């Protein structure tokens, strides 16, 4: 996890692979650049709540299944 990623973890890469989406396809569906999808998957960027919801929507999963927060990791 990136130092600035805080306690936010995600399963974006795993769920994206399961959905058969490329990084670019997910980026287009969410409305961000492919580099931002890469940064989210590597926990190098914590997205806004709106983008997090859009990622979950694009992956067809509840947001709680995609993103998780653990206070212990901060």
């Amino acid at each position: 996890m990136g130092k600035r990623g805080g306690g936010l973890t995600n399963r974006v890469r795993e769920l994206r692979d399961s959905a058969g989406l490329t990084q670019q396809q997910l980026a287009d569906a969410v409305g961000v650049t492919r580099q931002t999808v890469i940064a989210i998957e590597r926990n190098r960027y914590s997205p806004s709540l709106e983008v997090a919801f859009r990622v979950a929507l694009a992956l067809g999963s509840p947001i709680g299944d995609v993103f998780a927060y653990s206070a212990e990791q901060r």
Partner: protein
Amino acid sequence: MTFAEKSLWATVATVSAVFLTYFAAALPVRNGTDVGPVRVVWFVLAVVALAVTQGVAHAVLAVLDRRTDTDERGRLIELRGVRNGAYVLATAVFTALCAAIVTEGNAIFVHVLLAGWVAAQLVESGSQLVLYRRPV
């Protein structure tokens, strides 16, 4: 590499090339002298060269890379870059004011201020390039 990163590299390259050339031609400036017509012409030529090279570079990049859109991460990185550049520019303005007090003529004051602006531009773009590769 996104369009934004390529654009930043183009800015760093053009600002560096144009103003290194200008300062190589204009420096040194002596205490007690004013900025003469020759240096004013060089400065105007530098500004025109900067506008032309940046315009051409960004037009070429836009043609080669159709994805010119940005997102929230890009905007956050841009804001942090602008903030970093603003610190440098504020320092440069203060330094130039000190130079204006302790030197005679306006040549040193003007060139300290110009060098500070160039440094601020390079820090603004350079720090964004670093932030694109690090956790934000």
